[in-house]
């Protein structure tokens, strides 16, 4: 009995291999290309300052993107992180008010508030069944309203000790970047090795399948949102330590909402959920930071920078889509 065979068997070489390997491959390629371009202008991309620049840029975005990865893996999205970062920087800096003794309470309070916002997001998405896009946009607007009503500029002050967190470094490597990478490692372990991590993938892969398999999907979604918001809270604290105070616009100016989603997607995580991971996300973050640093060194206009970033993002996602189709 003959079996229908699709005409034109696909050649094997079209596969790009593991997406994480592809992301880091692209990063290396970009570093080489950037170095050559900068060298042609008589500069050096990867000197002490350049490395420091790339890693510092990566830290805040990396923190947010780690959280965003969790939410996106469950097939949701969090658009409230940018305003939440501003809010958290203010809560942290105002609670510290320059007093080193208040650092610990301030950090705990900030993270608790962030977790509260995440819980709200998660409950609205999981229990009220509001689409995550809308639910978190609503949360974003609520936080924005609060910030615009109460603040016109920076507020609060972090003690000098706390600023060390933002500025200390070992050689060209900032301590904060190492902490971010440690958190990424923790997140990787959580996703790849623990039961709640497995369930995150399951919910993103197919919520119904997960539910029928006995997974409490609501809890999984809520957990992801809480983790995401706490990560944004950490980013807010980091930025407060860099600035020396809290600022309402610190998250939105850098566009951490869309930027973090871009980094996650660039890192090979499927926007629909169920596939991807933190390793790719960090790669995506580093690619974006390298692009920025390279363009700064080259002194091109910010508009051109945005165009290139847009192109890179679209090309990356198109490549992933192709890979999936070829299976």
């Amino acid at each position, binding site marked *: 009995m003959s079996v229908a065979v699709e005409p034109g068997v696909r050649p094997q070489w079209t596969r790009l291999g593991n997406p994480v390997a592809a992301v880091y491959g692209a990063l290396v390629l970009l570093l080489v290309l950037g170095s050559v371009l900068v060298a042609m202008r008589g500069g050096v991309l990867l000197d002490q300052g350049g490395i420091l620049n790339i890693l510092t840029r990566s830290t805040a975005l990396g923190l947010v993107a780690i959280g965003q990865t969790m939410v996106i893996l469950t097939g949701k999205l969090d658009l409230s992180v940018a305003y939440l970062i501003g809010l958290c920087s203010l809560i942290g800096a105002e609670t510290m008010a320059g007093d080193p003794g208040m650092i610990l309470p301030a950090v705990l309070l900030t993270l608790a508030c962030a977790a509260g916002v995440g819980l709200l997001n998660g409950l609205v998405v999981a229990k009220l069944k509001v689409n995550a896009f809308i639910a978190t946009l609503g949360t974003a607007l609520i936080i924005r309203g609060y910030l615009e009503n109460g603040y016109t500029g920076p507020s609060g002050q972090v003690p000098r000790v706390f600023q060390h967190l933002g500025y200390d470094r070992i050689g060209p490597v900032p301590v904060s970047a190492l902490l971010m990478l440690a958190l990424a490692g923790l997140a990787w372990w959580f996703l790849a090795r623990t039961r709640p991590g497995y369930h995150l993938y399951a919910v993103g*892969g197919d919520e119904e399948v997960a539910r029928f398999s*006995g997974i409490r999907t609501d809890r999984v979604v809520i957990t992801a949102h809480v983790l995401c918001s706490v990560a944004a809270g950490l980013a807010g604290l980091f930025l407060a330590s860099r600035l020396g105070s809290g600022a309402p616009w610190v998250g939105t100016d850098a566009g951490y909402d869309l930027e973090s989603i871009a980094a996650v997607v660039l890192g090979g995580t499927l926007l629909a959920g169920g596939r991807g991971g933190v390793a790719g996300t960090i790669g995506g973050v580093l690619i974006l930071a390298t692009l920025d640093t390279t363009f700064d060194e080259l002194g091109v206009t910010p508009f051109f920078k945005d165009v290139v970033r847009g192109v890179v993002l679209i090309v990356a996602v198109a490549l992933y889509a192709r890979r999936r189709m070829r299976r």
Partner: protein
Amino acid sequence: MSVTGLTVESPVVRLCGIGKRFLGNQVLRDVDLDLHAGEVHALVGENGAGKSTLMKVLAGVHQPDEGTIEVDGVRRTFASPREAQSAGISIVHQEFNLLGDRSVAENVHLGREPVRWGRVDRRRMEAETERLLDWLGERGISPRTQVRRLPVAQQQVVEIVKALATDARVLAMDEPTAALADHEVELLYDLVRRLRERNIAILYVSHRLREVFDLSQRITVLKDGELVTVRPTRELTSDQLVRHMVGRPLDAYFPDRARPADLGDVRLAVRGGGNARVHGIDLRLRAGEIVGLAGLQGAGRSAVARAVCGAEPFTEGTVELDGTPARIRSPRAAVRRGVAYVTEDRKGEGLALRQSVRDNALLVRRAAFGRGRGLRRLDLGELLRSVTLVARGPDQEVRLLSGGNQQKVVLAKWLAVEPKVLVVDEPTRGIDVGAKKAVYDLLRGLAGQGVAILLISSELPELIGMSDRVLVMYDGRIAGELPAGPSEEAVMALATGHALEAA
């Protein structure tokens, strides 16, 4: 009632006097069911007969309003599927409950991952999966493979292993062949036999009578929520079974064929049609005629349909519609010339599941003709009545309809463009006996109005019962033509190439 069981030992599971109401609507009334170890027990009945409700009562999804469930002679109540699972009862769902991006082992243990020191014990998960696959005699599936990379038949194996991983002794299989291609059904048969040998009790729910007879030892027939009969399979013929299911004999099942006087002019003529997949196709469809196109999977039946309808056009030969040459290079061109194609894959290609009945029914008409241009005004209510659609109204979402009613919406969609030639590919796949009958009557009625119909079906009794002529394909060519009412043997001889070799 007395059960003529084959086995003397006591059943693994016994359901007694089960009754279930939904919103005052009695869906099950006083139904008994015994499942024995190592026995395949088929559950048949039309849609709405209560099969899936009974299965869900067994699996703890629904709780019965009346009656009792006994497992190994002990009375049990299941508040959730989990509790049924822990009593050893699992469902293999019709639509697979698998995550394509995760590995086989991860799917098998989904929601029950073994944990050691706070981390998932992958080694144990994989070893356990390996053990179950071995026990089933399935080699060639690695626990680490991503499920999406497996062929559908092997995905079903994974689904079954997943059900077995809860130490199931009772498996309820809901339409297990619905997602399988013809050649994969054999693999499932084999798997079911192995499950029997390993003393699993199987409840097998299917519309396909051939499978029921091939696999089961006993058959329970439900109708309108009540038990009609429980009989050993070898004591039943398929005629008797259909009579039990629908309350009418099989010969009254297909509508009368066209008389020679009913046939009109040739509406579609293909001469020497060929493309990459089919060759030398000669085809003449007359008004009022239903022509069956038979053949094995991959013989080119659907390729001919797709060529006629412009999806993969003929690159050789000529096509004439109503006597005038026609070049059909795209589905749009086909629709505009009055050639409609009801695809095999109703959910993937035929329907926008989240849209309303109205939007689906008018989809083709709106797309190909714009609003009102070229066709007379359309009465949607009339159209939906003509396909005997049962729905809450034109605004109901299509995904909420039963399979049979979804198929009627697909037909309505094509009838809305008033086709001259209708090509139907597997029009009754996955729908129940009563709805099949409605589709048959509808097709014959259309032929009576002068539509020329090309019918493709893998179910030979259907193809033979419906067609005024049967064309049989083999290896991309038409191997022969048979008059009305050929024997299954005659069709198979052509379809398998025996007739060609003999000639």
